């Protein structure tokens, strides 16, 4: 056998095997039966993106690059705690699957003019219910309740919206599985209240195995993609798959924001008091959990 033929065979053989495997693998064969329904995809994606563990902590480093390539940086620590399901919903969702109210305590380290500032959010799951938000301004010793009902405004001057950071309630949209690729379920999500949002619809590319929303593209009235979220890195932390690096691009202006989550920890038993007793903990940050 000539050397080149041998080489050719050696290339073809495994490829053939691979193709055969690809065609007959249990995954492919069972795809029709195994494919989860749209509701399940939505639920599991939401869980991976926003509800891993019952609580969590992350140090967030944000780099905002505007259309003229000027860079600004933010650094803050997020503490997150999921509320238990209300009794009437406890049957509907198991303890692990509850995707309801959450509380976020966000302590700013940088830039220096906002150091020690604290931002507290009680995110309410109920459709149409506004979140409760407070801001603590250390220089004035002022706990200020914030009147901000629009969740689709920039979070700390970045390309991420409040809703991108805390999670958009899936009940706000109609979901449709428009495509299934090798790696992805592609969902098209259309808002139930178009007047409340700036997009006509958005599409999510959800990784089939992990339910990580790898890309989210937002489309305007002319069906043009104008805003794009992409996951750049994923790690398994404390047993939970975690998005540790993500990018939000403004495709119209050309700016973007990179978000990276460092020192992520889950299930730390964060005391509910930190989030509820805000008159205390906004003024006295719980440094043992923040550091």
């Amino acid at each position, binding site marked *: 056998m000539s050397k080149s033929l041998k080489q050719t065979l050696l290339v073809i053989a495994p490829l053939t095997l691979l193709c055969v495997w690809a065609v007959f693998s249990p995954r492919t064969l069972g795809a029709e039966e195994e494919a989860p329904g749209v509701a399940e995809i939505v639920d599991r994606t939401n869980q991976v993106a926003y509800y891993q563990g019952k609580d969590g902590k992350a140090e967030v480093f944000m780099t905002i690059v505007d259309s003229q390539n000027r860079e600004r940086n933010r650094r803050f620590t997020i503490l997150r705690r999921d509320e238990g399901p209300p009794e009437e919903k406890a049957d509907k969702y198991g303890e692990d699957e509850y995707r309801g109210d959450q509380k976020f305590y966000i302590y700013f380290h940088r830039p220096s003019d906002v150091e020690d500032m604290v931002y507290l959010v009680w995110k309410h799951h109920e459709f149409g219910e506004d979140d409760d938000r407070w801001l603590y301004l250390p*220089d004035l010793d002022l706990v200020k309740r914030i*009147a901000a*009902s629009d969740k689709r405004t920039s979070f700390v001057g970045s390309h991420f919206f409040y809703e991108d950071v805390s999670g958009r309630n899936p009940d706000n949209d109609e979901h449709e599985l428009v495509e299934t690729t090798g790696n992805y379920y592609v969902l098209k999500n259309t808002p139930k209240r178009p007047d409340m949002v700036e997009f006509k619809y958005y599409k999510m590319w959800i990784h089939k195995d992990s339910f990580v929303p790898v890309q989210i593209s937002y489309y305007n009235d002319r069906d043009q993609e104008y805003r794009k979220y992409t996951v750049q890195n994923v790690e398994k932390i404390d047993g939970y798959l975690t998005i540790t690096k993500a990018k939000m691009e403004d495709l119209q202006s050309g700016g973007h924001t990179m978000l990276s989550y460092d020192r992520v920890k889950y299930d730390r038993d964060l005391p509910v008091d930190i989030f509820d007793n805000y008159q205390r903990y906004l003024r006295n940050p719980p440094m043992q959990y923040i550091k």
Partner: protein
Amino acid sequence: MAKGFAPLLYFFLIFFPLIVFSAPAGAQPSLPSGLGEESSSPDVPSGLGGPEEEKTGPSLPEGLGTGDETQEETKEREEKEGAWLGGLEDLPFQFGGFWEVRGGARTGNDPYERDVSLAETRLHLEIQKYWSSSSLDLAADFLYDPVLAEHDVDLEEGEGLFDLRQFRYNFSPVGFMDVRAGRQILTWGTGDLLFLNDLFPKDWRSFFSGRDVDYLKAPSDAVKVSVFGSNLGLPVSLDLVYTPRFDPDRFIDGRRTSYWNPLLGRRAGRHDILETETPDDWFTDDELALRLYRSVMGYELALYYYRGFWKSPAGIIPDSGLFTHPELAVYGASAEGNVGPGIGNIEFAFYESREDMSGSDPFVDNSQVRFLMGYEQEAARNFTVAGQYYLEYLLDYDEYRDNLPAGQRKRDEDRHVLTVRLTKTLLMQNLELSLFAFYSPSDRDAYLRPRISYDIDDHWRVEGGGNIFLADEKHTFFGQFEKNTNFYAGLRYSF
């Protein structure tokens, strides 16, 4: 098998499935209008394998799920972060602050003050040290302002080359209690630039002359004890502030801002500084402030009590002709919470002028009732609108009127004030335009505070603004400051 062939095979094993199963054109430029096709599928990020990648090897251990490129990026970012923080992270305490230059000028001809209202250089330093169950905060200002030409340090007045803003020790003697002792900034109540139950010292000189609004709050030398009901199983929480020696406002006295002097019967300024006698005996001329609060259905309810002195001069000592701070007690209440799409607040306070309970003493201000209601809403994206109505009702008005010395300007029984705050942010929230306006239909005067600020980068901020007083008469609350209308600009470097 030929040497060098295995890598090729391996290459195919790994990449063929990716070619087959992943979207072919993640790198394709953004599509024209139209729904995305298969070709618009994104690449799988590092840390997530395609389905077949899992077959080719065990899943990577924690922290190693990233490719070389990403690790490099991470390292690069960490290096950048380190450089950007300037090594301040390595200190055993938190350190920060800013350096600022700020200048302002009067636009009207004020016969009693200089044309330059402000020309200062300020270095603000903050140090924080956290221990396991306590912390120390220190904030100090070094400032030089030739307008006043007074450089002697006076920590009560806050003028001079050095001002101590904060020097407090925070600890929890028991689980349900926080204590803050030392020099500190204190705030409570629901008003926006209107204060009813917040009787902590204000620095009106800074406020009217164009310093940052943070400087409206003057420090207290006090002990604050907070008892948290939720940690005791009680529905209410308590704040107690004890100030062993009266801390008055840094009130308008003519040195920097001209004012209506009732003794002279005219406006006066730096040549007629308001002379005061301040109660200043430790532990006898003291202040006590209490707040009892709880949250009910998302509404924050509070009751307040204060015992001390009028914070700004509210009386005259007949023998000496000096202004003074008569005794005062205040009883109040407030509520704040969601109202429709915004936040509403309501506050009430009864000011009991303890040295003139009947209202007939012409040398001591009468008791008052103060009432406030306010509402704030995000009216459009990055645009917030807020409004307040404030009433100051003078009690025993007949006695006041009957005993007013001849020649004194009489104030109204009711002082109504309306305020509006408009805030718009632009350019990724780096540019902020705001206007705060006070308007009193009863005094027929107004005070406008327009401001524009721009964050040049993470360190530099430039800002400009004005303090505009409009008046019909010379003696009304805002009208007396008419000649002080000024515009200012500042440049700040934060670190």
